[in-house]
């Protein structure tokens, strides 16, 4: 990796710093200010896109910790998000727990469910684990859709709006500030978690878990920590999804396809980087909006030769194609491209 010109590191802390120059700090400040100011001038349509992107980023960061850093592939992420969403909705709606505690409760519940289904990871890995997370997804969604007395089953569940100290988050703009604040915290936590003892243990386990164990890393502990953290993020994201995005829950929101899409997002973004999930989520969610709200209705209405509904197949086809192409052509994802771009910008006009 290349540093900006003229940077010297004299201490370990300097060497580890994420932000090294005044310019970088200024740009971070500018970004934060932009995140606060720009939405004031945006229409609700765009605000809701921003909201879903930010909520998805939280869940994708969790999956990235679990899959990208710790190497434990989970194809049941939507199931864990559903656990968080329903727990939080039931806690606040039926037991009148304050929203913040409901959200944390959703995170904890999702984390514990993750630990439960992550237990096989201690004996198996790779494909076996992937299958058991698929099983987790189907079992969780079956319980949720059948336990009608608690979750509303297929009919759905109404979720109260988020409320902190008596202030209700009902408008798109206020929801945006709540979601964005939590999202920024989540990015901060995820980025720094990856650099701690835990994060390094995760990477060691991903690269070779046997070697990691020989070096004294407690696999039992760290794999379960990875599952707990990853699913905790999912739970928080689910709670926000319930309270601030849908306002209504239905098992259909958390389908198996959604789980695959989460895996796709972190692959497209770049596994094992913090910027990766952000790139991937923005890419996929924008594409999803563009396709399902603009292109599909347009095609449906212009080309009427085919039986109705044909164009809705285009979205999953393109998603599948994008995932496959990224894996073949750029397995390190958009984050790697961004790194290449940054490096060549720094070295310009010298090409090496």
């Amino acid at each position: 990796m290349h540093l900006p010109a003229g940077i010297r590191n004299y201490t370990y802390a300097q060497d580890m710093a994420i932000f090294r120059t005044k310019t970088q700090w200024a740009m971070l400040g500018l970004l934060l200010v932009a995140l606060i100011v720009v939405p004031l001038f945006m229409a609700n349509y765009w605000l809701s896109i921003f909201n879903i992107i930010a909520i998805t980023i939280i869940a994708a960061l969790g999956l990235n910790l679990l899959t990208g850093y710790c190497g434990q592939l989970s194809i049941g992420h939507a199931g864990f998000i559903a656990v968080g969403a329903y727990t939080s909705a039931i806690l606040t709606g039926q037991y009148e727990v304050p929203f913040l505690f409901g959200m944390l409760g959703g995170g904890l519940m999702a984390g514990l469910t993750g630990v439960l289904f992550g237990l096989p990871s201690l004996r198996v890995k790779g494909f076996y684990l992937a299958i058991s997370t698929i099983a987790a997804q189907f079992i969780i969604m079956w319980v949720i859709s059948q336990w009608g007395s608690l979750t509303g089953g297929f009919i759905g569940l109404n979720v109260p709006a988020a409320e902190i100290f008596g202030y209700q988050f009902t408008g798109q703009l206020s929801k945006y500030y709540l979601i964005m604040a939590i999202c920024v915290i989540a990015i901060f936590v995820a980025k720094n978690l990856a650099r701690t003892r835990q994060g390094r243990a995760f990477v060691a386990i991903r690269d070779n878990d046997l070697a990691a164990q020989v070096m004294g890393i407690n696999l039992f502990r760290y794999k379960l920590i990875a599952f707990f953290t990853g699913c905790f993020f999912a739970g928080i994201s689910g709670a926000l999804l319930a309270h601030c995005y849908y306002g209504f829950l239905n098992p259909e929101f958390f389908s198996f396809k959604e789980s695959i899409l989460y895996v796709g997002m972190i692959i497209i973004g770049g596994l094992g980087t913090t910027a990766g999930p952000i790139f991937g989520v923005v890419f996929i969610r924008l594409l999803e909006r563009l396709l399902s709200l603009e292109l599909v209705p347009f095609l449906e209405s212009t080309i009427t030769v085919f039986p109705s509904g044909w164009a809705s197949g285009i979205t999953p086809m393109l998603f599948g194609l994008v995932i496959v192409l990224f894996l073949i052509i750029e397995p390190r994802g958009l984050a790697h491209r961004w790194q290449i771009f940054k490096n060549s910008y720094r070295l310009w006009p010298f090409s090496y």
Partner: protein
Amino acid sequence: MADLLQYTITGITVGMVYSLIAMGFVLIWKSSGVANLALGQLVLLFSWFTYGMLAQTGLPIWLGLFIVVGFALLLGWIIERFILRPLIAQPILSLIAVTLGMAYFIEGLCTFVWPWGVDVLPRLFPQDPVRIVTAVVSQEYLWAAGISLLLFVALSLYFKYSRMGIAMRATADDQMAVQACGIPVTKIFSRSWMFACVMAAIGGVLMSSIGGISYGLVETGMKSFSVVILGGLDSFLGAIIAGPIIGLAENLAGGYLTAITWPGVKEIIPFIIIIIVMFIKPYGLFGETRIERI
């Protein structure tokens, strides 16, 4: 008592179709180490394709099925050549994820071409129910079981005696050694994908001639995962034995547990079995326990 016999016969016959689909999975896993998670979607695609050939174009049944098998062979070749070949020697994570991407694509393709989502195949087998002691079983189940059995025998003979079959078994054993002996490993890979697709196609036709075509076929294909997990990923024998066990378990559970738990328990039993097997005997009944070295 009549119920029990009924559930048993239905369970075992449906289970044999699961076995058939699962064997396609085992074949790919053994020869190339790729886990094909798009199995359910492939089953769906081939069922729709059969529908397209038989119901939409109205070809005679023998010609239609012939084309379906041809299409399955072609698709298997395409998948291996253009998706899996560039990813040889990539980490297992990429190999799993690429089949997920494929699954997404195939599902979209099915919606794209057949957007109405639910239909029935033309009748392939005679309709009249058959009486076995006290149970009444529709003939389709017996046909499905018979065809699966026939395919098992044919495959076993192929692997036992044909040159290519022996080469495929050798590849499963040790890729490097086989390569060194001058056997074209990539050809083996594509051959195993082609075979697996044909098995998925036949399984799909059998399943959809019994229960019609719907999105549920994807879940049927996914139930084959529980067959391979229970039987052991790298064991054909395991797949053959575990299939009827899974079919039996889900039909008995559907028959006797629905009253005391929630509806739909039948659909979820295979996934619960996966979790139980993971905890007790993760490498399955007949799977080889992997001993790792650093």
